Each structure stands twice: as C-alpha cells, then as structure tokens.
C-alpha cells in the first residue's frame, strides 16, 4: 500500500492551528489599536495631551459638552460633575471639576473609566488634565474636587453638535492592595 506520507500536511495544519490560537490572543491588541486608531470605542486619550496655546479657536461653532457620572456595582462614593454641561468652541480650553467623596468608613481606591458618545467624537476630545489618568485613593469620609482640563480639536466633524463625556467609577481597592 503506497500511502503518501502525512507528515508534511500534519505539520502545516498543526502550525495553522497554533497560529490561529495566537491570532485569538492577538485579537486583543488588534482590537485595542484599531479602536484607538479609528477612535471608534468612545475612549479618550489615556495620557495627557498638551494644549497648544496657539490653537485657533473656532468662534463660529459651538459644541454642547455634557458630563455624566455613574458608580459601578454600588461603589459607596458620591461622584458627580460640579458642572453638568458647557458650551465650548473647538480649540478653546475648558476646565471643570468632579466631586468625589468616599462615604464608607475605610480607605478605598477607585478608577474612573471614560466613555464618549457619539463614539467617533472621542478622538477629538483632548484632555490635558484628568482624574481618569490615574487611580484615586481616599480614606473613609474624605472628599475632594478632581479637575478635568480639555479642549476640542478643531478638526471635529461638522455634523457633531453634542458630545457626552461619561465616567464610570470602579472600585479597584482589591488590586490596589487596600
């Protein structure tokens, strides 16, 4: 019985299998980079972007920016924006703060996660200072005002007239070793 040797085919198929397994994991960074590059996931810049003082402010356009805060999984903090909405011109720097209060009796660490809707507007919202860049820690019954400094890029498409910036507060005390 002259049967062809299967070795070569088996090796190729096994490599293909392993390759697809790797591809499955590679989907994670692919997803993250695509979302960042196309800015389609509503995620804003994770690190500070400097504001160019020479930016030309588009005085003929006014964008309504709303701020929303949500606590995840019943985090016992008071967390809300002190300014609910502002009207800005693209290119103009805006500053506001979010109030955060640890209403529990013990030290807690939280992480604010931003989400912008419409998702495509996220890449035009450039933050210079944001409490979402880092984790925040407060002892029991402490409170603070957390700053947010941002501007809208002048490339913001014309059809976008309202942007909502939402923050969700997550309890990360466990992984912060509290």
């Amino acid at each position, binding site marked *: 019985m002259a049967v062809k040797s299967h070795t070569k085919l088996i090796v190729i198929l096994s490599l293909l299998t392993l390759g697809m397994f790797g591809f499955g994991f590679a989907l994670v960074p692919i997803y993250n980079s695509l979302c960042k590059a196309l800015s389609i*996931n*509503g995620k804003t810049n994770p*690190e*500070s972007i*400097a504001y160019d003082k020479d930016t030309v402010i588009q005085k003929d356009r006014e964008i*309504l920016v*709303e701020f*929303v805060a*949500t*606590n*995840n*999984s*019943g*985090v*016992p903090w008071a967390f809300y924006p002190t300014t*609910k909405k502002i009207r800005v011109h693209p290119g103009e720097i805006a500053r506001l703060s979010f109030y*955060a*209060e*640890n*209403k*529990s*009796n013990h030290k807690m660490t939280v992480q604010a*996660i931003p*989400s*912008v*809707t*419409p*998702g495509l*507007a996220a890449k035009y919202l450039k933050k*210079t*200072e*944001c*409490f979402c*860049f*880092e*984790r*925040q*820690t*407060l002892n029991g*019954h*402490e*409170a*603070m*005002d*957390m*700053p*947010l*400094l941002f501007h809208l890029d002048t490339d913001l498409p014309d*059809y*976008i*007239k*309202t942007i*909502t910036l*939402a923050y*969700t507060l*997550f*309890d990360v*005390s*466990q992984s912060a070793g509290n």
Partner: protein
Amino acid sequence: MLSMLNVCKSIIVLCATFASQAIWAKADHWQMNMYKGVTPLSQDMYDLHMVAIVICAIIGIIVFGVMIYALLHHRKSKQHKPASFHDNTRLEIVWTIIPFLILFGLAIPATKVLIRLEDSAESDVTIKVVGHQWKWQYQYLDQGISYFSNLSTPYAQIENKEPKGEWYLLEVDREVVVPVHRKIRFLVTSNDVIHSWWVPELGVKRDAIPGFMHEAWARIEKPGVYRGQCAELCGINHAYMPIVVRAVSDEEFKDWVGKQTKIEDKYLESQDKPKDQRVMTRAELMNEGKAKYDLICAACHKQDGTGLSPLYPALKGSSVAVGKPISRHIEIILNGVSGTAMQPYREQFTDEEIAALVTYERNAWGNNTNDIIQPADVATVRQGNTQQPKMVNKARAGGLR
C-alpha cells in the same frame, strides 16, 4: 358608486388596522407582526421589515412553486423519465446576478434608515439609563431627578397564588415620563453586567455595557404608555426588569418634574436627624417584609432563605440574620457587600421597607429571633453612616502645567 367606494375604503382601513396592530391600547394576544410604533424610527424599522418580508415572500413563492411543481410531476410514480442534464453555466450566472441585484435594492433603504438612526443633534430631554441587576435606574440630568424603577407585579402573582394582572411583568413602581414631540436622548450604561434597554414601540434598543456609555434617541409622536423589557441575559431575574415609558404633553411633563424629589433635596434630607418615623406592628412588618423579600431578595437568597452557596449566602440560620448586632444586618442591606453580588439598597428602599425586610429575615424560616426593627432604627443606622466629609487635596490628574 359612492357606496362601493366607501365600502372599499372601509375594507382597506379595516385591513390596515389589522395589519398595523399599533392602535390597540390593550395588548394583542395574537400579535403576529412588528409594532409600527409611535416614533419616526420605529415606523422606518417597520417599513423596512415589511419590504423584506414581501421580497422574501416573492422569492419563496417562485422557488417553492418550481419545487412543488417538480415534486408533483417529476415523480417515478407518474412514469416521468429522469433527464440527464446536470449543469447550465448561463443559468447559474443568471441566478447569481439576480439575487445580487435584489440585495442591492434592499440595501438602499436599509442604509438610509441606518444613517437616520445615528443622529447626534441636540436633544430636549436627556435621560441617563443605568441597568442594574435587576432593575433600571433613570436620571434626568437637566432636571436633577434620579430614581429606580422596579417591577411592581406582586410575587403572589408570579407564584400563581393570585390571578395575574393585565400588565403582568410589564408594570413598574415608577415610570419614565417624557414629553411628546420632543427629541429625547437616552444615555445607556450598566452598573454590573450587560443589559439592554428595549421598548419596541419606540424603536429603541441599546445595550447597557458596564464602563461604557451609548446613546439612543426617540421623538415620540403620540401620548401613551409604552412597555418594554430587558433584552440581554443578565442573570437570574432577567425576565423581571421591565420598562414603562409614559409619554405626556409638555405641561404634564413640567408638572411631573416639579413633583419629583430632586437629588439635592434627598442629600439634604439625609443630613437631618432621624425623622419622626411611624411605628409599625409586627404583622405589618412581616407582611411587607415577605412581599418585598419574595420579589427582590428571593432571586438570590431563595424563598426559603437557603441561598445558593457559595455565591449567595443562606439567610436561614445565618449569623447575620440571627446574631447581633442588628445594625450589621441593616448595614449590609444599606451598603451592600463590596466585591460580591450584594448591591447597596440605600437608594432604593425606604427606611420602612428595610425595617420590614430585616424583621422578616430575622423571624422567618425558623430564625425566630423575635426582633422587631422599626423604621427609626434603620434611619439611625443610615445617619450613622453619613457624616460630613473632610475635604482633601489628593486628586491625581496627571497633566502638564
């Protein structure tokens, strides 16, 4: 002639009514078609759906027609001799191109409606919708209103101990009230797992994803009550978190807004000393406690209090429900247990409701502590938790100066 015209007209109206199904105020028990709905979007969706059905029906009639003809006539029993042809390239190409063109034709209206769905122009009312396990929370951002909306169907109906009401599983204690003819923007997110906010008659469905905010919008053309449900499996009580939207005139909306407790008010209120709470009898506490427990707590802790270890601890015989201090029991309900599925209920239950729950849990299933907890006791614990915060300067915001 005129009467014939009228007869025709009335027949057409009757058929249209039958087909549209949107005019019935009561639910239709034999509803076979999509709601036409009361928003421009829902009507677009319905129209697209009908176009698709018609196209599929036509294709089906043609294909099945040929097939049925063959099944009837090209049988051995009818002495039909089998042909031997087995390909025809030209025919294959024809029936590749024609479906492609049909699809192309279908894609055009679909694309148009889809683009209309994404509309980020300014809205008149913005409502943040937060999905929780297992209720919805609504926050009217401009009006400063925030409340939870729970299923209000009594558990006895679910258990088949009482006859079911007309809106069984589609009724809530607090509805979403919105004005008609205004653009309403829904900002949807979740507190825990993925939920989905769906009201068919408004043509709105948006997944609620923890950590992310997505928007949907509607402009309701007709006042009325519109009901929906959670549309993404979110755990045990996925079937028990309905949505009720009441669309009213502008004036009624302003009235309703005026009557709601504003967020700031509630915060101030809790600063006071425990108010004069009423004293409840044991029977009142046990009854209200059992009703509330069965509807909300039994999902995880089970009706008989045995829970589902290790996820949901048993309350029957548990140190929390039987031991001291009672304030620990009250605190767990108020603040939840961080890192577990036990959520804080301080925003959702009044002092009376928590008092009833605690009393019930401490006396049911053989726990028999004979403890009676009054609303004032709960208020005291609530106050004990609240104290004036100390302002500090610990915010880390990165950034360049």
